[in-house]
């Protein structure tokens, strides 16, 4: 894929729900906006960092806040482009390309929306390779790129510049700003050189999401062929292999909040035997275990598919009695280093089990 046109957006959005590992919210509205802007403005170039000229500057952008707030406070078509322009103006820089900070969920589509209006290319890659809850967990941050200078834009067009903050400091500050500005904002952050982008992104995730979404849509309602083709796609990617970990129905569902996170545990019972499984949630799916045996943990991807349709399901949509097929997929290499595991390892999500990577 060298360009993204309106016809690719539905595939990217479905692939992005899969890669969101239970988090990321519903990308439907982002999809509507991206389809519309690409229909009006024509396709956007999708490039690797190597295609950027010397001295090029790239910024990451996306939405930050509460998906529930945006059920009512809708995003606007031009906000991502306005935020990039404001960033350039405030900091007196020229931005040459845009990158998504999170391929999981609607944030996969926000840079595409801006790129179409600004005639800029989009980098094929992102800062997570999945969805994760906090800014310091981005591969940009892990590569040592500071999040600031960053610019936040709210629904009224009000902007604020954030300077000289590291990832740990930035996260609560930007979160609070989102809370006091309607619950959902657009941010432009992580200003990078070509070389920094090349070293920091999880590469090719946008085209991967599109390919994944196409397979999932083609095989809707047919789990077996869907799994076969999805496994092939992952085998040819920089992610690990697909491991079907369990199939079963939800027989128990507990949810609570601790420190602003949705913490949940889902009890699954397999269809054929009396095996039970526990799936833990902290905004995303973070661990699957069978008794004392941990089958998968973050940062590996844990994905719940609807057993009948094969479609990926967000954690917030899980319901008692629902029938699931749970997959584990090895995380991209970026998250498997000892340094990265200090930030995105099981312990960072309150889990006791050590990280035992899936192949």
């Amino acid at each position: 894929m060298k360009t993204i046109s309106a016809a690719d957006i539905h595939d990217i959005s479905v692939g992005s729900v899969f890669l969101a590992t239970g988090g990321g919210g519903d990308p439907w509205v982002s999809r509507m906006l991206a389809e519309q802007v690409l229909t009006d403005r024509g396709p956007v170039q999708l490039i690797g960092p190597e295609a950027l000229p010397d001295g090029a500057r790239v910024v990451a952008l996306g939405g930050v806040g509460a998906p529930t707030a945006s059920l009512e406070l809708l995003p606007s078509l031009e906000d991502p482009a306005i935020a990039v322009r404001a960033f350039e103006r405030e900091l007196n820089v020229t931005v040459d390309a845009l990158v998504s900070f999170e391929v999981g969920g609607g944030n996969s589509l926000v840079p595409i929306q801006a790129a179409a209006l600004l005639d800029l290319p989009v980098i094929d890659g992102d800062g997570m390779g999945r969805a994760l809850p906090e800014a310091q967990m981005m591969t940009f941050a892990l590569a040592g790129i500071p999040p600031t200078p960053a610019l936040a834009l709210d629904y009224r067009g009000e902007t604020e510049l954030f300077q000289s903050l590291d990832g740990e400091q930035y996260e609560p500050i930007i979160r609070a700003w989102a809370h006091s500005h309607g619950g959902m904002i657009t941010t432009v952050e992580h200003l990078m050189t070509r070389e920094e982008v090349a070293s920091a992104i999880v590469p090719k995730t946008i085209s991967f999401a599109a390919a994944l979404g196409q397979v999932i849509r083609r095989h809707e309602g047919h789990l077996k062929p869907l799994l076969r083709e999805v496994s092939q796609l992952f085998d040819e990617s920089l992610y690990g292999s697909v491991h079907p970990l369990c199939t079963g129905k939800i027989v128990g569902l507990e949810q609570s909040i601790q420190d602003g996170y949705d913490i949940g545990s889902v009890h699954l019972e397999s269809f054929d035997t009396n095996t039970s499984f526990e799936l833990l949630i902290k905004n995303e799916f973070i661990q699957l275990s069978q008794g004392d045996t941990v089958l998968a943990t973050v940062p590996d991807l844990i994905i719940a598919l609807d057993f009948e349709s094969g479609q990926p399901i967000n954690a917030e949509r899980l319901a008692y009695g629902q029938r699931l097929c749970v997959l584990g997929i090895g995380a991209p290499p970026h998250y498997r280093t000892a340094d990265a595991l200090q930030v995105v390892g099981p312990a960072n999500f309150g889990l006791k089990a050590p990280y035992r990577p899936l192949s």
Partner: protein
Amino acid sequence: MIVLGIDVGGTHTDAALVDDGRFIDGVKVSSSKDVHRSILNALDVLTERQPDLIERLDLISLGTTQFTNAVVERRALAPVLAIRLGAPSGKGLPSGVGWPNDLADHAIKASLHLKGGHLFTGESLSTLDDQDLASCHDLLSKHSDCPVVISAPFSPIRPESELGLAKALAQQDPRRRFTCSQTMGGLGLLERENAAILNAALRPYAEDVVDGYHRALDDRSIKAPFFVSQNDGTVLSAGRIKALPALTFASGPTNSIRGVAEVTALKDAIVIDVGGTTSDIGVLKQGLPRTSHQVVEIETVRTHFRMPDLVSLGLGGGTLVHEDGTFGPESVGYELGSKALVFGGSSLTLSDIAVRAGAMAIGDPSLVAHLSDGFIDLVYDRIRAAVYPLVDQMRGEQTALPVIVVGGGAAILRPCAEAYWSFLDAAVSSLVNAIGASAAEASGYADEVIHFNDEPRTLAIERLTEKALDDLESSGGVRNLAALSSIEENHVPYLGNAWFRVKVSVRSPIAPMVQPLNIHKVSE
């Protein structure tokens, strides 16, 4: 208390006469194009058998797909003017976004996007100004016949911006009809607005339809009040259907599950409804169909109504059986009576298999005598392999849940039934959807985002329960007989610890069930 439940389907109209939950009699007639014709046909057949029916009738309850079909067929829709508040948020997401173009053309004449509405905190998002009002007046004067739909962010929590604009415009234009999105309830601005637009576009038709029913019933001197099924398995008064026809979307599949509750008095069960082409497996939970988390999409238009939790498989009376003993998903459907082997046709169907197995008595059994016992066993092995896992999956942890098999093709499953499966009498079984329509209960809802520090949890739930009870009453329910169906509390992620989305639902018998007025005597 005698209730007539009527289910108007595409091919058949079923009517069932139920006395305090006890099935008395029922008929199945072919549907005619004209829905009240179908109702009258069914009524007339029944009155012949039950001469005092009309005098004894206390209530009529109707299940209909007419309003869904009007949307699907793009007919009888009155185009609306859609005014959305909340600018500048939502620029690029106009009313009708994501709709099929031809449906939007039929249902939306023009739209405006103006300031107003609220944030999740209850603070004002932006304020409607004189210029906004002027553009409203301008739009209304250009389209004097169109009903108006007003939607605003967080209107279920802060209704005043929708209501304020409706009031201001109504002062200038008192004969115009205004619909505020909050009357459809529920969070999700686009979904609520979609439902409100379809609803407003259907209202003139709904008035015609309801008036038509009244005329048809008047023709037979029936003065009993009538109610219509909605998508959650409960009913709405005829008057409210005139105002809220969209609430009937996707009401079909819930009626047979509801019917099982009615005839078996079970509160919890798994229901297998075997039709001509497919079987639907659903769950009866505390007397109502269990809902899924999937929303109702009508012609790809997303609404915020929730679908009943069903799994379907290609197993019905007309389903074709292949040489290797596998079956479906192809079906001869309504042509069963001419195409199946037992009726002299040349297609081997599951009905033929059931006749050969001695489970069903239709057609001429000698026409299937050549099928070997081994083949019949093979087909039933396949049926078991298809049905058992689905039943098991629908079960959740309730291992003791009884399984009730209903529908015209129910007998097919007899030879592979397990001990805890039950079958209803054939007459009742094929009319169970009409009986479900007769199970007239009303429901009420409230759905808000609440900050538990500002409004303590117990007070919030109390207030929402009152709100749901108001909603219940306007549907025809009885406040002091209401029971709580559910309270759902979901934390709103990324907004700190205290923000919750709370949904309260209540239900009760409907008013005429409680005080069986002999309406025609009272009104005469």
